[in-house]
């Protein structure tokens, strides 16, 4: 039955309670899993959920975690993640997750309960102005005030969440709308244009031709690819590799883009940005033509803006026109989907007869090899079995041992030093295997994100590389892991500090470690056991590999408490307010940090 065949006055038989209509619309949108937490305002939906089998509900322990879990689900599958929370505190708890998804362009549909329409504005119990609060926290939001809009709004929300630059969408559902009988409306056909939101996905051929000519003449090119390539789907990553190989250019990925290009590829120069590799940042600094595909010149990438890649002409392909010329003025703007842009670039490259500046590019690669020879990620691990574990070494061994298993590995992180070490020392060969909070930098993201990924990928090895401070922000999700028997592994680099805060205090604030020590930590082994999981601990190098093997061998959830060096800093580092060529490389050069200005401190 389509919307157009609905009689003007549907008979009672064609009307179903609003909650059922919502679930039917979700099912028609292909939803299989909802992450949620019940409460008064959404009880009708929970009642409808109880009476069906098509959609599985995962009961989280906190609404923020529901959104992060949906993000992990979405990021690891390319599907839209779905969240269901109640009114008031349920909705406000979800806000951090929503902003996280907004910043990292993750498609989420979040259903929030609301007090009945006649009570809206009366300061009713568990009432919050959810659409008001989430307006700047979402890509779009809706308040349903008429039953006949219910199904239509759900379909619209999915379209908005996944189209163009993806993002989170909230649907606020007053309780009376969930009870009152409502008609069902089919989803509009894909070819029906949306009334107002029609993002451009096909790039302008003239801009593509100009980009190709610029790249062919380039003597020192760099391809800088971000999360947009991953959002476009696996085909975009394949096309990126094809383009990089066809052109022979070096490629770097942003934090969000890791996995878009294979880390083991000889043309990969590593991640760029504040804690990126020396070679990637020097490529950005020295290049003459830069091709940015699906990244947004974030301040963590550019460093000091007026010194960013000073001598290059820049090509920027992005599906969001507002990302172009926002921070960095570019020479060739291309609005379009990353996959379509890469396909068009490939075709134009093959057709264009501009000679490629080959000799110069050979010299460019020689230069890059010299930068690589610095081995910016080298660290010194004392080989004695009783030695203190370096956090970098713990991550490196985790990577090597998990890679040797041949299993499908998905890694999430919390936020801080451990996140950067994971980005530096774990090599991603494919997209959708790396889940991290890039834009918002949300501590507490990793455990629920790994949980969501594990739901979507039951056979994958899902690991949360965590810090002891971050993981405590959503540690309650250990309960969810136990309930659904999700074998997520939490790999905690425990240095008893909020490590990144401590590092900045050491480098920028005279070593005054104000409130950054993780005092009174729980015993993570016993904490794991209290949550029906396995707890493991490595206190020295001799125990590290054994703990990793044991963690991987255990069929259920595990917390591995890896006690690492407490004073280790994350390098390389571009200090705030510095340019790419002012990178600090390692402990011996730390004195350079004295050059950080007050302006730099302001930049966080």
């Amino acid at each position, binding site marked *: 039955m389509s919307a157009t065949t609905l009689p003007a006055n549907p008979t009672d038989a064609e009307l179903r309670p609003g909650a059922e209509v919502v679930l039917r619309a979700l099912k028609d949108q292909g939803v299989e899993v909802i992450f949620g937490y019940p409460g008064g305002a959404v009880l009708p939906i929970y009642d409808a959920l109880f009476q069906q089998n098509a959609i599985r509900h995962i009961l989280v322990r906190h609404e923020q975690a529901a959104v992060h879990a949906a993000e992990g689900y979405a990021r690891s599958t390319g599907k839209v993640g779905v969240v269901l929370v109640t009114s008031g505190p349920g909705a406000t708890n979800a806000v951090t997750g929503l902003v996280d998804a907004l910043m990292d362009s993750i498609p989420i549909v979040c259903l929030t309960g609301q007090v009945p329409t006649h009570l809206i504005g009366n300061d009713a119990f568990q009432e919050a102005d959810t*659409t*008001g609060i989430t*307006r*700047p926290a979402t*890509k*779009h*939001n809706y*308040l349903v*005030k008429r039953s006949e809009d219910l199904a239509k709004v759900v379909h619209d929300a999915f379209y*908005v969440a996944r189209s*163009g*630059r993806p993002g989170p969408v909230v649907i606020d559902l007053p309780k009376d709308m969930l009870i009152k009988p409502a008609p069902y409306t089919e989803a509009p056909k894909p070819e029906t244009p949306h*009334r*107002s*939101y029609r*993002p451009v996905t096909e790039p302008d051929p003239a801009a593509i031709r100009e980009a190709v000519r610029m790249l062919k003449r380039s003597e020192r090119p760099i391809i800088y690819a971000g999360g947009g390539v991953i959002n476009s789907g696996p085909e975009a990553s394949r096309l990126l590799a094809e383009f990089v190989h066809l052109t022979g250019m070096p490629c770097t990925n942003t934090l969000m883009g890791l996995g878009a290009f294979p880390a083991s590829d000889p043309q990969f120069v590593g991640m760029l940005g504040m804690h990126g590799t020396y070679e990637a940042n020097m490529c950005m600094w020295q290049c003459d033509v830069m091709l940015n595909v699906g990244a947004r010149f974030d301040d963590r990438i550019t460093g000091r*803006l*007026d010194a960013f890649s000073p001598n290059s002409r820049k090509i920027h392909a992005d599906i*969001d*026109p*507002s990302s*172009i*010329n*926002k921070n960095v*003025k570019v020479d060739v703007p291309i609005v379009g989907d990353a996959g379509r842009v890469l396909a068009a670039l490939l075709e134009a490259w093959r057709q264009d007869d501009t000679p490629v500046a080959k000799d110069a590019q050979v010299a460019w690669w020689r230069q890059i090899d010299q930068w690589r020879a610095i081995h910016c990620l080298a660290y010194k691990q004392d080989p004695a079995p009783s030695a203190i574990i370096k956090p970098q070494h713990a991550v490196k061994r985790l990577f090597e041992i998990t890679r040797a298993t041949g299993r499908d590995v998905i890694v999430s992180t919390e936020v801080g030093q451990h996140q950067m070490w994971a980005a530096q020392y774990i090599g991603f060969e494919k997209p959708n295997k790396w889940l991290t909070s890039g834009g918002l930098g949300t501590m507490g993201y990793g455990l629920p994100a790994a949980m969501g990924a594990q739901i979507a990928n039951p056979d994958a090895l899902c690991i949360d590389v965590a810090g002891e401070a971050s993981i405590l922000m959503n540690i309650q999700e250990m309960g969810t892991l136990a309930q659904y028997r999700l074998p997520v592994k939490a790999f905690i680099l425990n240095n008893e500090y909020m490590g990144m805060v401590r590092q900045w205090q050491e480098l920028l604030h005279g070593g005054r470690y104000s409130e950054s020590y993780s005092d009174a930590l729980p015993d993570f082994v016993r904490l794991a056991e209290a949550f029906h999981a396995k707890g493991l601990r490595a206190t020295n190098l001799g125990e590290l590999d054994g703990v990793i093997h044991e963690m991987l061998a255990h069929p259920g959830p595990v917390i591995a408490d890896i006690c690492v060096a407490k004073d280790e800093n994350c390098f390389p580092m571009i200090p705030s307010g510095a340019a790419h060529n002012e990178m600090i490389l390692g402990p011996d050069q730390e004195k350079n940090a004295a050059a950080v200005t007050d302006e730099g401190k302001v930049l966080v």
Partner: protein
Amino acid sequence: MSGMNTRTATIAVLVENEAGVLARVIGLFSGRGYNIESLTVAPVDEHGRLSRITIVTNGTDMVIEQIKAQLDRLVPVHKVSDLTLEGPHLTRELALVKVVGKGEHRVEALRLADAFRARVVDATTESFVFEMTGNAEKIDAFLGLMRPLGLAEVSRTGAVAIMRGRAALAV
């Protein structure tokens, strides 16, 4: 950085006439630190489905381009047009101006109002309410003259604008 000179832009935005759309536009300006000099909004089609928002703002070229791109990606926004860039356009504002006074001042106010083509829409023995339309500069000039003559209250609509000629902003 290029384009550091600021300019004023009059931007017309056609939006779905739905709850919260104005809050989205205003929230975008406050959230991203853009200026609003004036903002007007009203439904403009016969079914009341579309509203037109006219925003006068200022900023560098880069900021104004950002404002337009940010407006355009709001889901209920149909069209964004920078009238300042797109050629000749008309800008008008309506003002209701109350002047209170007696004697010479009252006569002078009435005389100046006539010169500015302001209409008297309310009168008592001690007051006038003038209605006038024009661009912002004309209204500013009129208010400047009324100030010493007993200007008591002003209500202004903010600018509405439209392109000259055949070209039309429509869905």
